């Protein structure tokens, strides 16, 4: 979307990037228009209390508490899947366990969720699959926040030709849909693991954060205290880090949190299409894709990894929602 934050643009809010991961003509990730909070320069004295208020507000939101608890649980599962099951997710027994149905009496046991088309414990695979999804989600988010944040900051702060060049580059990337670009890029890797997927998604995804950061910096830059700081001779680095960043970072955090769920979906979609993760990495997307072949006779093989994936994405989106509501002064 060329120039939505152009300084000459008087528009208060940019039209959003639509968030549909399936569109080929996809423009950006799961970001709603109202997530782009423009920090209100008039509130600069309360800058610190914005975070304090947000935290106080968050602690009382059930949505936040539920999603945070879920995420903590998911992270624990991702790090120590062995705590929750003794079953080996790669152990297969075709003779005994080929498509064996879920056995609810086997509470928290290997056969709880049944066995897949390779005679492997679905419960164990669901647990061990969390690692790939969580790692991709968090790492891509960190990477795009850093990369996009720095680029957006530089472009917004310095303006001029730097800004023009960066903006055009951002536009170029926005013209290439995420899923399409990732498909083409990942085709290039002869061997793919979590890090290649992270690399591809980060390479294509950073522009979204850069745009948000740039817009926020542009707004903050015009505020009195920055102008005053400049007049008093504050250095560029100090201005950026001490004055602009704390005030511009809120929308970036909100967008990044919500986008995290999107990156998890992106990994699963790519793995589903056979171009994401591969053995021996255990991925929900791959398992869902394999389950297609037996969906008529054994729908539970698809159900459990799909449910795990949806719950994970839901947790991060709810967290992002809660953080946005807490940080958005207009809704307070």
């Amino acid at each position, binding site marked *: 979307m060329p120039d939505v934050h152009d300084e000459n643009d008087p*528009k208060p809010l940019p*039209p959003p990037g*639509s*968030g549909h991961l399936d*569109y080929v*003509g996809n*423009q950006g990730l799961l970001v709603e*228009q*109202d997530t782009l909070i423009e920090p209100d320069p008039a509130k600069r004295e309360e800058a610190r209390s914005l975070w304090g208020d947000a935290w106080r507000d968050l602690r009382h939101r059930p949505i936040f508490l539920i999603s945070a608890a879920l995420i903590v649980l998911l992270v624990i599962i991702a790090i120590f899947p062995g705590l929750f099951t003794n079953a080996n997710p790669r152990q297969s027994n075709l003779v005994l366990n080929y498509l064996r149905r879920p056995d609810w009496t086997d509470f928290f046991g290997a056969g709880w969720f049944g066995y897949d088309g390779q005679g492997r414990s679905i419960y164990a695979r669901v647990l061990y699959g969390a690692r790939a999804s969580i790692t991709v989600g968090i790492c891509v988010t960190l990477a795009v926040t850093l990369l996009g944040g720095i680029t957006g900051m530089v472009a917004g702060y310095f303006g001029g030709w730097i800004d023009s060049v960066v903006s055009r580059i951002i536009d170029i990337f926005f013209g290439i849909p995420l899923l399409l*670009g990732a498909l083409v890029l990942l085709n290039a890797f002869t061997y793919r693991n979590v890090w290649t997927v992270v690399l591809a998604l980060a390479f294509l995804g950073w522009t979204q954060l850069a745009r948000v950061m740039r817009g926020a910096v542009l707004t903050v830059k015009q505020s009195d205290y920055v102008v005053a700081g400049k007049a008093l001779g504050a250095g560029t680095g100090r201005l950026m880090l001490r004055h602009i960043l704390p005030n511009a970072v809120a929308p970036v955090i909100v967008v990044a949190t919500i986008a995290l769920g999107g990156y998890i979906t992106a990994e699963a979609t790519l793995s589903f299409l056979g171009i994401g993760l591969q053995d021996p990495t255990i991925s929900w997307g791959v398992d869902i894709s394999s389950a297609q072949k037996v969906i008529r006779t054994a729908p539970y093989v698809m159900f459990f990894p799909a449910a795990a994936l949806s719950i994970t994405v839901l947790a991060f989106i709810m967290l992002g929602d809660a953080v946005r509501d807490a940080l958005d002064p207009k809704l307070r």
Partner: protein
Amino acid sequence: MGSYVIRRVLQMIPVFLGATLLIFLMVYTLPGDPIAAMYGDKAADPAQVASLRHQFYLDQPLWKQYLHYMNNILHLDFGTSFTGRSVSSIMADAFPVTIRMALIAFFFEIVVGLPLGVLSGLKRGSVADTLVLLLTLLVISIPVFVLGYIAQTVFATNLGWVTPTVQDSTDITQLLLPGAVLAALSLAYVARLTRTSIGENLRADYIRTATAKGLPRRTIIVRHLLRNSLIPVVTFLGTDLGALMGGAIVTEGIFNVKGVGNILYRAIGQKEGPTVVGIVTVLVIVYLVASLLVDLLYAVLDPRIRYA
């Protein structure tokens, strides 16, 4: 206004060139020789491969290939796929299907998404509001390929209302289910966006003024509230329609819709450079035009905005 449009169009040129170059590089520098692969398990015959590479202009340095390609594009020649069909005719087959499905999805977004959002926004905190919030959250969380399978299993396999996959991509009634699946996520966004926008506007001064003036509630809602609240929603829908035109890889794949996404996915798999680059070039143009139109639409709808 006129000079703004001209400036925007000028800015599009480097973006267009950059995006096509990027996709061109991505497609043409990747490993996997499409020519050698035509031979199946038999070793490709070098003389023949050289000849075919020459025919498809693949024996030139990359920058020459790109210039050659762009030059052809300027003459509206998108090249020939390895099947011997012109890429233009491939696109002429695929785009109408995608556009039909996009319009169906768009229809769902408006007819279902908007009312849900308005209802939810006006009755903030009610049971209906909570329900809409939860439902939309759920839809946003479920990946489209899972949603597609659920819809296919429920409506086709279990209920038997439709065939599991689209048999005839030109038949609108068959496109309803994939269209609905495609619409689901944006529909949820539209509902949530409308809700937020209405919530913000309800507390705006002009509503307070209107209420103080004693205007009937109905008039306030329809004349003032909705008109102003829908501005961001309409721009969202505008962008979304542009994006929908690009087709959907997963949905089209699951439902066997022979649209742009389907063709593109297969072309990427088969390393059909001319087809991939051709379609993406058109998509980039669609995207650029759509974003310009949305920005202009924004100005038309919101009188506070004037483009210099």
